[in-house]
């Protein structure tokens, strides 16, 4: 079976290359048989990559340490769970994993468009297969061959990096990869629209939905990563501006910009070059993210790959993509002229444009900060990391402007808004924002950024609630429906708008959680069993932890030694129960790791870290007393749960926006069904 998977990988490349050539040739010469052959090549590559992926996971499960990849990322004692996910544990497997998802989404796109958007499909297929071919070439010829054999078979493998031994390992990377790879479909449609010259509204329709799919997975992937980082100490809380975290944020930022500016093109026929550039940029960012993770160029907690040859291959590919984008857009620049101009500075269009500039500004600062160490190393020979202070200083103000725009945009009318109406519509939300700030100042909040975030957050939330209310009321009045019915119909009739607003609400909730981190409290002390630590929370609670000593345990057949600190926890004198915090030592890789204890409520998290144990081997030998002295850090982090709640709201909003309109018999009827979704029902037109 493993040989079959290996053979499948070798068969996949010629098929992908064949498909690439035949798709472009068939598209150019209008040869339906060639295009069909290319489309079948997409399905074939998917099938072959599935076999390759199964083979790799099987090699892990069967402990085939004669394979370099398995020997380096697994050992006999690794739980089955992590053996199966060995496929994406290291560079080699995760490149296969990339092709797996890419070929899956490509197959889905080809199948979905088997009898619509046919004019686009030859070049779409060709582009998808080009990207697949690139990754297959990397896999087979860039020193990252996943089936490379060792000259001998070791008794056991080197084991999986302990930081990766967390259940999020099976969730976070796949979700992120789904996001990265799904964006290849919008990219392929953009390339096809440029090549075929069909630059009207139809490619935008297909692209928008696929972008939303990719954006949704990227966002969730990032949030899952934050959750993982939060649970694994040493990764610096939930966000550390680590190069790979940044890399995953970049396509998300540019895709967010695209999802907004695309509406201006749909409604006004403007910003065509800009949108095209955003599609290219976002796709290049997904490749860049893969490149950063998988080249080892920049020091990062994620970098488990060190080869440089692959870096040059990726850089060349990105260079070619940029060149292709510039050439294609210049070639079609006459067809990409705007149909209209912005009528007024006070309009939804200009708010969206502003939002785009800010998002790209954020993306630029993140790229700059991420690549800065590399640039300084090139120039001065020394790596200079910019670190979180740089990112926070630059991105907090940018984030706040974006947050404010999520509230300002919806209140401004399309085309031109009048000042008088703006003032009237802003009055209540601004009052709410100012009111909240006043209350927070009164109760002693002084952090200016936190105050600004909460103030703007309250403003945006009020805007959203008022929008829902006004929309419902208008619909109820016009259609003569009850409020509840009108509310449901309102959302159902324009899912994009209302799904979008729900996503905005999610962003507010998440930002509030970020701002609350400035109210984190902590104590750190070296204590003996029986000692107590007390920490005050920002919400006025007092947590007392009583240290009950250490217990030890050996897991995974002695591969892991655990020192577990036990605590009794009280809040305001009332007993809550027990908590544990652990230190682990993985003997195979000789790496220590830390497992924090978290007790979470909706408004604050108690977060306990076992930072040091005085005499680890003594404790292991059964000694008590002095040996059990430990350095304990206790933090109370307010509103952290709101990030995860925000993620949930984000998912709900995205699903509403993505939910297909039923009964779309006409296919670009995607266009009809959606373009014509009335805001307040058909009656609105007749009023």
């Amino acid at each position, binding site marked *: 079976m493993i*040989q*079959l998977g290996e*053979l499948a990988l070798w*068969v996949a490349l010629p*098929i992908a290359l064949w498909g690439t050539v035949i798709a472009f040739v068939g*598209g150019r010469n209008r040869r*339906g*048989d060639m*295009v*069909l*052959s290319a*489309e*079948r090549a997409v399905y*074939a590559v998917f099938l*072959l990559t599935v076999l390759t992926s199964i083979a790799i996971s099987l090699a892990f499960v069967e402990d085939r340490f004669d394979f370099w990849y398995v020997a380096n990322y697994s050992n006999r004692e690794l739980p089955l769970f992590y053996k199966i996910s060995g496929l994406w544990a290291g560079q080699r497997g995760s490149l296969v994993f990339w092709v797996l998802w890419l070929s899956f989404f490509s197959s889905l796109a080809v199948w979905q468009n088997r*009898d*619509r958007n*046919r*004019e686009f*499909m*030859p070049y779409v297929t060709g582009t998808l297969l080009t990207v697949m071919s690139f990754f297959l070439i990397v896999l087979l010829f860039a020193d990252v061959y996943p089936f490379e054999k060792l000259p001998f078979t070791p008794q056991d493998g080197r084991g999986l990096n302990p930081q990766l031994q967390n259940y999020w390992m099976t969730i976070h990377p796949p979700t992120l990869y789904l996001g990265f790879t799904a964006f290849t479909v919008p990219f392929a449609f953009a390339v096809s629209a440029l090549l075929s010259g069909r630059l*009207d*509204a139809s490619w935008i329709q297909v692209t928008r939905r696929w972008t939303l799919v990719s954006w949704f997975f990227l966002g969730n992937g990032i949030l899952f990563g934050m959750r993982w980082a939060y649970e694994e100490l040493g990764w610096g809380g939930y966000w550390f501006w680590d190069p790979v975290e940044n890399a995953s944020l970049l396509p998300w930022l540019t895709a967010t910009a695209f999802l907004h500016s695309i509406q201006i093109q749909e*409604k006004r026929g403007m910003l065509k070059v800009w949108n095209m550039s955003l599609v290219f940029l976002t796709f290049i960012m997904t490749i860049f993210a893969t490149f950063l993770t998988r080249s080892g160029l920049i020091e990062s907690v994620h970098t488990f790959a060190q080869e440089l040859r692959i870096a040059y291959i990726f850089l060349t590919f990105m260079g070619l993509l940029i060149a292709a984008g510039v050439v294609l857009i210049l070639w079609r620049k006459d067809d990409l002229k705007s149909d209209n101009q912005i009528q007024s500075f006070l309009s939804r269009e200009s708010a969206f444009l502003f939002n785009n500039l800010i998002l790209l500004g954020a993306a630029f600062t993140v790229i700059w900060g991420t690549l800065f160490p590399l640039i300084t190393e090139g120039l001065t020979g020394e790596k200079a990391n910019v670190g979180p202070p740089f990112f926070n200083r630059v991105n907090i103000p940018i984030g706040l402007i974006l947050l404010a725009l999520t509230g300002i945009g919806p*209140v*401004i*009318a*399309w085309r*031109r*808004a*009048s000042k*008088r*109406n703006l003032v009237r*519509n802003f009055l209540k939300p601004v009052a709410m924002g100012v009111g909240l700030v006043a209350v927070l100042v009164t109760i002693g909040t002084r952090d200016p950024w936190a105050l600004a975030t909460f103030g703007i957050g309250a403003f945006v939330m009020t805007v959203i609630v008022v929008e829902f209310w*006004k*929309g419902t009321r*208008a619909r109820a009045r*016009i259609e003569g429906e009850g409020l509840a019915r009108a509310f449901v119909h309102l959302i159902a009739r324009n899912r994009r708008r209302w799904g979008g607003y729900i996503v905005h609400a999610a962003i507010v909730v998440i930002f509030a959680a970020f701002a609350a981190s400035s109210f984190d409290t902590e104590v750190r002390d070296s204590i003996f069993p029986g000692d107590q630590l007390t920490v005050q929370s920002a919400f006025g609670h007092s947590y007392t932890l009583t240290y009950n000593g250490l217990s030890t345990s050996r897991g995974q057949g002695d591969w892991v030694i655990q020192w577990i600190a036990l605590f009794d926890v009280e809040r305001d004198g009332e007993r809550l129960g027990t908590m544990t915090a652990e230190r682990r030592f993985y003997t195979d890789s000789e790496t220590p790791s830390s497992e924090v204890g978290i007790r979470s409520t909706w408004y604050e998290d108690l977060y306990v870290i076992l930072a040091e144990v005085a005499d680890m081997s003594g404790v292991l030998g059964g000694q008590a007393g002095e040996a059990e002295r430990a350095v304990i850090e206790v933090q109370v982090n307010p509103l952290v749960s709101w990030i995860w709640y925000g993620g949930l709201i984000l998912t709900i909003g995205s699903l509403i926006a993505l939910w297909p309109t039923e*009964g779309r*018999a*006409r*296919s*670009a*009827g995607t*266009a*009809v*069904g959606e*373009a*014509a*979704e*009335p*805001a*307040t*029902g*058909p*009656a*609105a*037109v*007749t*009023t």
Partner: protein
Amino acid sequence: MILTVGAVLFACAVVLYVLQPLLTGTEAPLGRGWDEITEAEARTAAALKALRDVEYDYHTGKLDDRDYESLRGELTAEAVAALRDEEADAGDRPALQTATPDTESIEREILRVREQFRAGTACGECGHRNPDGSRFCAACGRRVRAA
């Protein structure tokens, strides 16, 4: 040995599957499907949606009366122009006689569209105008009037 033969056979089957269209002349369609909307139809739909957005903005207090009136005028003209193109494309009914839309013909067209919405024959979802007595939209399949 059996494994090798099986693997080779499998690889051959995959290659054959990919090459089969060229060998047998099976073709994938390359043109626009009969049921796909045309550029003009898409523009009509977009114009109607823009009109509805203006209505929505007006009803939720984002536009004042003067802007609302003038925007509605502009958008109506856009919608009519798109409708006319669509009709010219379709060729199943004569295009409006005047080449340059004067206010009167726009008003007439709008009146007609409104009548059709009132009568329930114009689809509230996609704007397609159905023959009198239609219960379902011929374009998108939605119910156009209460049965």
